């Protein structure tokens, strides 16, 4: 099937060439980082995780969100999702590749990463995250390969794939839960040490991921003969709406607990994000942008008229994706380190090499998804 990804028109190849160019630039910066060390990033003793780990966290959510189309389709036999389920699974594959690469570029000794498997340490959440992510990649690869292969031959997929698909549902939930446990289990970082972190991660993921899927489907409709139809989009939009509402509810619960309880160790991180702390407030405009975008998106999604109108739906999806990216892919990780455990406020700003490397990692994910989509659409003769 993979040969379909190697044939395409001029538009396809220029898109691939653009992605390769972004990857090339990023690779050049990565070589610099590899030679000089992580000193080329904005990271420091005080903020020791930053942009890379934040992107990893955000993209684990996007990967997990495939379950929002897989579950209704396979568990509830919701036929309308037939066309988009494979798209969701391919987004999951691309996202997991992105996640793993972000971990790789964040390592001080990247070629020792195999030590995680050579010296398995079950008491470490990072070990479980590595297990969960690799497992999820394999599951999605196997499922999409088998189901699409059967579709190409015009036969029903083999029976054994069904339990594998069922397994992928709790597995998707587990990848984001374990990722939340990475942070929520640290007594040293009160900002993350909240029982609601994992539920919140899932809610934001199940909102941002399917919103991305809506945008992808509409884009494919514009660029190709692939038409997912109006109804499935609307059904996904309802999932997005509920998940966003739940996410905002969870965030408000966190804010209430921190502000009302007034414990300095918990409150100071929220102060840093929303009003600034000791004159430092790099993230304040970002956090407010995220808040406003999130609320506007929720409004557009809740009102049936604007949800059904595809123009306003697209607007809502873009706004909420940006909002949740700022929240999880920027603020959540950085604010966990500010102030630091010794009550110092040391800020962090990603550097150009860091951003270029991140862009390259994303480009690689896009390349994977592009190739996989090309295969899927070629098999269905919908290009």
């Amino acid at each position: 099937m993979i040969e379909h990804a190697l044939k395409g028109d001029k538009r396809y190849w220029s898109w691939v060439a653009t992605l390769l160019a972004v990857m090339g630039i990023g690779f050049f910066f990565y070589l610099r980082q590899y030679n000089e060390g992580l000193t080329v990033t904005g990271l420091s003793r005080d903020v020791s995780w930053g942009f890379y780990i934040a992107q990893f966290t955000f993209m684990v959510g996007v990967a997990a969100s495939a379950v929002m189309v897989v579950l209704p389709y396979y568990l509830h036999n919701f036929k309308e999702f037939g066309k988009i389920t494979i798209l969701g699974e391919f987004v999951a594959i691309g996202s997991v590749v992105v996640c793993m690469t972000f971990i790789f570029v964040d390592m001080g000794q990247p070629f020792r990463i195999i030590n995680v498997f050579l010296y398995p340490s079950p008491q470490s959440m990072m070990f479980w995250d590595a297990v969960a992510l690799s497992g999820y990649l394999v599951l999605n690869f196997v499922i999409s390969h088998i189901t699409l292969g059967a579709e190409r031959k015009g036969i029903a997929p083999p029976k054994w794939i069904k339990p594998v698909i069922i397994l992928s549902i709790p597995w998707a939930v587990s990848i984001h839960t374990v990722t939340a446990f990475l942070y929520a289990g640290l007594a040293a970082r009160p900002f993350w040490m909240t029982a609601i972190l994992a539920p919140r991660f899932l809610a934001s993921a199940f909102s941002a991921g399917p919103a991305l899927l809506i945008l992808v489907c509409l884009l494919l409709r514009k660029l190709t003969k692939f038409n997912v139809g109006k109804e499935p989009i609307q059904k996904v939009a309802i999932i997005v709406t509920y998940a966003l509402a739940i996410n905002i509810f969870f965030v408000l619960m966190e804010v209430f607990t921190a502000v009302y309880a007034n414990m300095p160790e918990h409150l100071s991180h929220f102060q840093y994000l929303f009003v600034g702390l000791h004159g430092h407030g790099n993230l304040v405009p970002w956090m407010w942008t995220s808040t406003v975008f999130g609320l506007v998106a929720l409004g557009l999604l809740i009102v049936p008229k604007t949800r059904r109108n595809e123009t306003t739906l697209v607007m809502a999806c873009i706004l909420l994706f940006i909002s949740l990216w700022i929240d999880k892919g920027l603020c959540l990780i950085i604010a966990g380190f500010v102030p630091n455990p010794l009550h110092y406020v040391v800020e962090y700003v990603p550097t150009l090499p860091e951003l270029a490397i991140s862009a390259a990692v994303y480009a690689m994910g896009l390349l994977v998804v592009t190739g996989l989509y090309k295969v899927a659409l070629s098999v269905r003769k919908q290009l």
Partner: protein
Amino acid sequence: MSVERRKFLKMAGLTALGLAGGAPAKVLGQDNAFADTAAEAVVKPIERSGALTAKRWAMVIDVRKCQEAGECTKCFDACHLTHNVPDFDNPKDEVKWIWKESFEHALGDQDHEYLNDAVKHAHMPVLCNHCDDPACVKVCPTGATFKREEDGLVMIDWHRCIGCRYCMAACPYGSRSFNWRDPRPFIEDIQPDFPTRSRGVVEKCTFCDERLARGQLPACVEACEAGALVFGDLEDPESEVRKLLAERFSMRRKPGSGTQPEVYYLL
């Protein structure tokens, strides 16, 4: 971890013996018992005569005595020189094992507006607390950082560390540093009897395990002329550290984090 390491050494020893001694042993018609006893001899922990040993190493820092010494930096200098700690002269790349903090930052949760001046303006050395239940060890995905069971030292295997910095996120004391860049050009006076680190690994105070093995006290303790740093076995009721803790009021950093730090501050 130390058990695993010993197992590894044993295997390595057996393999080496198998390669080197196995063939002649066969020729001579001897059985493998010979090889086994030889291997046991190889893997026996090195008992250095005069090594300092304890069941639970701990440090007691007399903040008052430290204050009386004024702007002294002897313990920091001695530690950083002994352990080839680089000096980058910028806070972003900084590596430090022991340094000075004010009461507010070191023991911050007990800070208040009307605190007496002696305490408020007190500065004290901070370092790795060699916790009884170390958060850094729990999170390490490779076992590169581990607690030595025989005496409680929290150590790092610089050849296994993958540089993920999870331990830095988990440490409630900010005691860990990362080698953001190659430290070697920034070490003024390289000490050949202690390893330098490569970039991309985490490091911190080791309670001078290498000096203890030679029968010496930690470098900072030895360097402190004011006698403000006292090092000893917490499980020995006759030790200096236990006597001081029995006599004076002491505090530990962030007791609420549940890590059971083993560095005590006398105020």
